[in-house]
């Protein structure tokens, strides 16, 4: 019983640092992103853009995005986690088919994928 009051006070004080913490995190991520943009301006014209380091960096960037995308589609968190795996896979397959068959139209592919997932969820 004696612990209840301090615990509640703590919960109240934790709330604000939570928001400040999140703001700091987002801004730090923004700075980390800008680092590459700014460094690119600094280096532009001084180094060749096709060196091995850039090749490696590009590979890592592609692998990260590729890994993240498949991970979200296969093992999502949040509200997408409530949808069955087969529905997401059907949505992806139909979206890819529409995209490639209809002249690589990104908007059309996305719209078809959206409808395919909603349709699959309705039917399932």
């Amino acid at each position, binding site marked *: 019983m004696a612990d209840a009051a301090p615990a509640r006070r703590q919960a109240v004080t934790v709330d604000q640092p939570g928001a400040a913490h*999140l*703001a700091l*995190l*987002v*801004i*730090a*991520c*923004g700075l*980390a*992103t*800008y*680092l*590459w*943009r*700014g*460094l*690119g*301006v600094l*280096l*532009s014209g001084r*180094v060749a*853009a096709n060196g*091995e380091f*850039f*090749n*490696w960096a*590009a*590979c*890592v*960037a*592609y*692998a*990260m*995005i*590729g*890994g*993240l*995308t*498949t*991970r*979200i*589609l296969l093992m999502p*968190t*949040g*509200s*997408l986690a409530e*949808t069955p795996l087969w529905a997401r896979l059907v*949505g992806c397959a139909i*979206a*890819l088919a529409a*995209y490639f068959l209809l002249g690589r139209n*990104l*908007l059309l592919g*996305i719209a078809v*994928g*959206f409808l395919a*997932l*909603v349709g699959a*969820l*309705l039917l399932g």
Partner: protein
Amino acid sequence: MQAVRESVGVPSAVLAAGYLGFGALANGTGFPLWAALLSTASIFALPGQLAMLEMSLSGTLVTAIVITVGLTAARFLPMAVTLMPMMRSGQAGSRQPSWRLYAAAQLLAMTGWAACMRRFPDLAPPLRLAWFSGFALTNWIVCLAATLAGYGLAESLPPLVRQGLVFVGPLYFLLILTGETRTRQGIVALACGAVIGPAVHLAAPQWSVMIGGLLGGTLAWLMLRPRGAKR
């Protein structure tokens, strides 16, 4: 003004679709709206924002999140290195002050870079920085609006449509990555990451984006290096 007109249309609509998904995803996972908007304004790179969102939800260390987001943005370095010399005007007397290039760099993203690479050869060098700024600033505003709209829509829509909207985020990358990756290196790196990323996630969820990217990317780089050396 010309650039603004060219930006509104397909490039902005595609970006908007991605950021609608991001906004909806942020809402669906309980991420606050102001933080989602701040991330669009300050990071302005969807893969990094998705990584940040996912990692902060799984309770990853702040340092690890910042490093991962930083690493997913590494692609901006070669983009900036190739784009910036085109925006410095030819004559020494009329060179743009460099702070303008540093400011423009914040707006650099894949869409704007690709558009500039297509458009710049026909554009006189002194006009290019203004063209880029108009194009990219329009994109930036559209992305903020789409984040807000996605977040708001996710709240008021039925769960089914909301899930569909959240699905748009990863779907956008699936299509753009499979369809628009032209280099052999990019394709191999994507495939390696697509296999290794989820596999690492099963073992170490908090580090999967970073470790998966480093492992998959390095593997792809090593696989293609001898071929590159031979040429």
